[in-house]
């Protein structure tokens, strides 16, 4: 369990409606500081700039999908240290296992319940060794 309390969360997601719902859920229910990134191509810069506690990646995005972005983050010294959680509607168990092996913290399946999302994230945060 990390020593710090989970606070800053960066979410990379292309769908604007879901961006808003997640922001409301995380800010109002969870009380987190949230930064949303709509374009995965700019995610690396935005994340290194924001220095979040946790990064949430959508799986399917135009331009670059979540797993690819995740691998890029791992290759980049500026972003390789941030723990990552996937938000996915379609990943198979095998794909998730592969990403876990690469260092992903976990996955939350879509559609998620905004009511429960902050709790789920805290649980995953606490599971980080």
């Amino acid at each position, binding site marked *: 369990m990390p020593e710090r309390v989970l606070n800053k969360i960066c979410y990379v997601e292309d*769908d604007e*409606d*879901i961006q808003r*719902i*997640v922001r*409301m*859920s995380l800010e*109002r*229910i969870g009380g987190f500081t949230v930064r949303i990134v709509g374009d995965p191509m700019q995610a690396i810069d935005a994340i290194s700039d924001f220095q979040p506690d946790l990064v949430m990646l959508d799986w*399917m995005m135009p331009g670059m999908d979540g797993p690819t972005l995740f691998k890029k983050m791992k290759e980049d010294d500026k972003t390789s240290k941030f723990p990552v959680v996937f938000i996915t*509607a*379609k990943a*198979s*168990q*095998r794909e998730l296992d592969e990403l876990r092996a690469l260092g992903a913290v976990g996955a939350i399946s*879509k*559609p*998620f*319940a*905004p*009511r429960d999302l902050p709790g789920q994230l805290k649980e995953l945060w606490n599971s980080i060794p």
Partner: protein
Amino acid sequence: MSQSSVSTTTAPAVPITGSKSDSDTQDRDLLVADRVEQLYSQLPVGILGSGAVGLLATYELWDKRLNELVLWWWGSILLITIVSAGLYFVRRRSALKSADSDWLRWLGMSALASGAAWGYAGAMFFPQHTDEQQIFLAFVLTGMVSAGISVYAGSWRIYAIYAAGTVVPFTYALASTGNRLFLEIALLVPFYYAINVAVAYRLNQVFDTGFRLRLDYGRLTQDYSRLNQRLETQLVELEEARRQVEASGRKLALFAERAPISVIELDVEGNIIQINRMAELLFGYIATEIEGRHSSLLVHDAARQSYLETWQRLVATLKPVSGVKFTNVRRDGVELICEWAITPLVNTDGKLLAVIAQGQDITRQLEAERMKTEFTSTLSHELRTPLTSIIGSLQLINSGVMGAIDKDVEELTSIAERNGQRLLDLINDILDIEKIASGKLELTTEVCVVGDLVSEAMVLNQAFALRFQVSFRALGEFPQARARADKKRMLQIMTNLLSNAAKFSGPESAVEVSVSVADGRVLVSVHDRGEGIPENFRNRIFSRFAQADSTMSRQQGGTGLGLAISKRLVELMGGRIGFHDRVGGGTTFWFELPEVSDKHQE
């Protein structure tokens, strides 16, 4: 026993010769029969000769002094002749069925009578007549004795009796004349008699040999014809077998020719011997162009290595392989993905004769499967994304974090959220069913405490049950029994069973849940106090889209897929699912999973 009765035993399966003692007795009987036959066939000659010589002798010996005696003698000769002729005719007409030994005895008596009659002539007339007549008589008697050899040649004993009948009285008469010359002749006569009998005996042996030879020859002929018959039968059978083989060969060829799959016959080296019409169409070659060429011609370069390895393994193990996919190549270079069943044709000695490859083009099928998977995955994403927004927004409103809202509005947003959730459940169920149908459902199983999962499911579904004013109650404490299960899917199964029970129990009732262990199985039961399962619904309750009453589904929700999915999930975890009526009304739905004991834990 006659020869014809032997031939009735003719049958292909019988050994050619019987046992030794049997055949010896048979032989003796057959020899006697032959001898009797031969003797009787000679009888007319004897009768005619005897009659003629008797007449001549009567004429020559006619004498005024003795004519009564001569007449009486001639009468007895005539009588013997007639009796012998009668004997002959009786036998020829088969008027009397008697044993061969009897016929022999009667002939013997007739021969003795005949011989004695001539002997009487010698004894009575020789001393009384003139010298010339004595010479005549001596010639007649000598002739009769000699002629007897040929008549009675079949049996030297009968001849001996016959000749003795003639010679003994004549010799006696010669000896008693007192004449020295006649006495000397009388001494010679028995000697001649002995020589004659010896000749008859020798002849007899020759006859015997002849008879035997004939018998053996007959038997040989019989054996030969029996052998021939057997050969003929075998030939017919062979011909029939050949016809059958030909017919089944034609049938097989027809099967291959008209089969809707490609059939290729290969030799032990992998060269093409024969291809059927479907294979011609598939690869674009005519049979005659490709027959004799190596089968790797039909395999794409990239797949050739794997094909040759498969071939080598097949030839080495002689075990058929099926379901193997190769990238084949058509004559025009187009790649085809084909699925093959390759079967070695092995004879009874385990020698490889040929190899039969049956295959079909599954390129389009694979493409269709790929598109279906892609479609399902896209559908899954495209449907869930808007639902995430809809349900998420409504949930945020209903959770109250956006501030207090009007009661009527809240009721409406709750309805919207609930139905959004229902739509999502339906999509999830349909995707699950699709995955199950295509065999793509993946389970992540681990050993877990079944009771804990059941408790978790009860907590998770409590809110849902409250909407129907139903509560969940555990029957007793759950045992710590463990089973290998997919936790997420276990919760899904329990959710299906619990929500069904909640929906169909009346308000203010309790759904009871129990977990027990028996015979190495962990049994989970959900008991309700509903109206029970209608009789006509019982056998299709686990089918897809099964709902007892369609108005019910609109009122209570549910997709009609839950139980079908649950059944498949339980089966994938190695368990069983079922239901039974509950004593006192209601239904118990149960499922069981194999228990993992400490010993079997991984």
